[in-house]
C-alpha cells in the first residue's frame, strides 16, 4: 500500500472512530435476576359476641337493660360468648359504655359512663345520693364474670375490682363465656321504685404480638 493510501486510510479510520465515540451511547452486557411473587398477607384483629357458643358472632357490644324490677326478684342472669374472630392472638378488654340510670321520680337520667367508657364521677355521686345503697348487695348489685377463667371481672359490691380494665388474652377462634348478673335485693327501698338502668358492655381487642402492654391477665 502506498504511503498516500496508508495515510488516507488512517484518516478514515480515525474519523470513523471519533464518530463512534462522539455518539456517546454504548451497550454493556447486562442481566437481571428476579425473585417473584413475595407475599405479605396481613392478619386481622376482630372480636365479636354471640348468645351461644355456636351462634353467629356479630357486634362487640352487649346491651344491659334493667327495668321493671321488684325487690326480691330473682337475679337476672345473661350469658353470652366473646370470641376472637380475627386471625391474630389478641387482648380483649371489656368496658361499660353509655350507661345511664333513671330514677322513677322523673328527675331524669343520670349518666354513669360515656360512649368512650369513661366513668362520670359526678353521675356516680348523684346515683349514690339518689339510690340508697346503690351497687351494694343489700340494694342493687351488678356483676360481670368470666365463666371460662372462673374470674369475677367486675362487682359493684366489691371494694376494688383489680381485674376490670385488664386484658384477657384470647387465641384466634377461642371464646370466653361472660355472665352478667344484676339483682334488686329484697331490702332495696323505695328509692328504687321505677328505676331504669340501661347501657352496654363493649369488648375492645388489640393484637397481643409486639404489644408492650404489661397490665393484663392471661387465660387459664
Amino acid at each position, binding site marked *: 500500500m502506498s504511503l498516500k493510501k496508508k495515510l488516507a486510510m488512517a484518516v478514515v479510520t480515525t474519523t470513523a472512530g471519533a464518530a463512534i465515540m462522539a455518539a456517546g451511547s454504548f451497550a*454493556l*452486557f*447486562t*442481566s*437481571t*435476576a*428476579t*425473585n*417473584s*411473587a*413475595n*407475599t*405479605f*398477607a*396481613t*392478619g*386481622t*384483629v376482630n372480636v365479636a359476641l354471640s348468645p351461644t357458643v355456636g351462634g353467629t358472632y356479630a357486634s362487640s357490644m352487649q346491651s344491659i337493660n334493667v327495668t321493671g324490677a321488684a325487690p326480691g326478684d330473682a337475679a337476672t342472669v345473661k350469658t353470652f360468648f366473646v370470641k376472637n374472630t*380475627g*386471625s*391474630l*392472638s389478641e387482648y380483649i378488654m371489656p368496658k361499660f359504655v353509655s350507661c345511664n340510670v333513671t330514677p322513677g321520680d322523673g328527675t331524669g337520667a343520670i349518666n354513669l359512663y360515656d360512649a368512650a367508657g369513661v366513668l362520670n364521677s359526678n353521675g356516680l355521686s348523684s346515683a349514690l345520693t339518689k339510690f340508697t345503697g346503690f351497687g351494694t348487695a343489700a340494694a342493687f348489685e351488678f356483676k360481670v364474670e368470666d365463666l371460662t377463667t372462673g374470674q369475677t371481672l367486675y362487682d359493684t359490691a366489691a371494694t376494688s375490682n383489680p381485674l376490670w380494665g385488664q386484658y384477657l388474652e384470647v387465641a*384466634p377462634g377461642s371464646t370466653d363465656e361472660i355472665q352478667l348478673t344484676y339483682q334488686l335485693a329484697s331490702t332495696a327501698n323505695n328509692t328504687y321504685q321505677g328505676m331504669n338502668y340501661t347501657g352496654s358492655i363493649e369488648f375492645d381487642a388489640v*393484637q397481643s*404480638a*409486639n*404489644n408492650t402492654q404489661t397490665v393484663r391477665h392471661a387465660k387459664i
Partner: protein
Amino acid sequence: MKKRLLALATTGLMSFGLLAGGTYALFTSSATNSNNTFAAGTINLDQSRDSGDSVPGPMFYSSTNPVTNPAGLYPYDQPAPSGSVIGGEAIGGWAPGDKVTRALNLQNTGSLVARITKLQAKVNSAGVTSGAAYTEFINDMNIKVVYNTGTGVVLYNGPLSNLLNGWVTIPTMLAAGHSGPLNVSFEATLDPSADNTVEGQNFVFDFSFYAEQN
C-alpha cells in the same frame, strides 16, 4: 562492433518500451489467517431463594403452601429453627411490629466478571396494587437488604415504597464468571405504627437485582 551496439540499443529500446508501457507483474503471494473466532463473553445473573431446600420460589410466602413450601420449612405460622439466619414468624398473618428475615443466593453463570449495581421492587398484580391500604403498607414496610457473603455490607435499608420507583443504586457486588453463591438477606419489618387500614390484605412484590459487565 556495430552489431553489438545495435543489440544493446535494441535491448535498451525494449527495456525502455517495457518501462514506458506502465504495466508489469511483480512476484506476488498471499497468506491468509483464517477461522478467526470472536466468541463474546457472557454475564448471566441468576437467583434462588435460600430456603433450606432446592425448591424455587419467593422468599416470602404466606402459609404452609405446598407449592412454595413443600418441605414445610419456614412457614409463617411457626418460629424459625433455632440458630437459623433466615425464617421468622408472623403467626396468623403480618401484624404491626413483626419482623421476618429471608434470603436468596445470587450467581453469575456467565463467563465475564459482573458488577451487581442496582435493586428494585415491583408490585405484583396477584395482590393489592393501589389504594389506601397499599399506600400505607409500602410506607410502613421497611426492607433491609444485606450482602452476607464476606462483607456484611448493607445494600439498602428503607421503606419498600422507595424501591418501587425504578432501579435504586446499591453498593456494588462483584461476581466473577461462574462464581459461587452470593448470599443476600432481606429483613422485612412492618412498623408498629401501621394500623387497621392494612388489616386482612394480600400484598405481593417481585424483587430484582441488576448486573452489568465489569
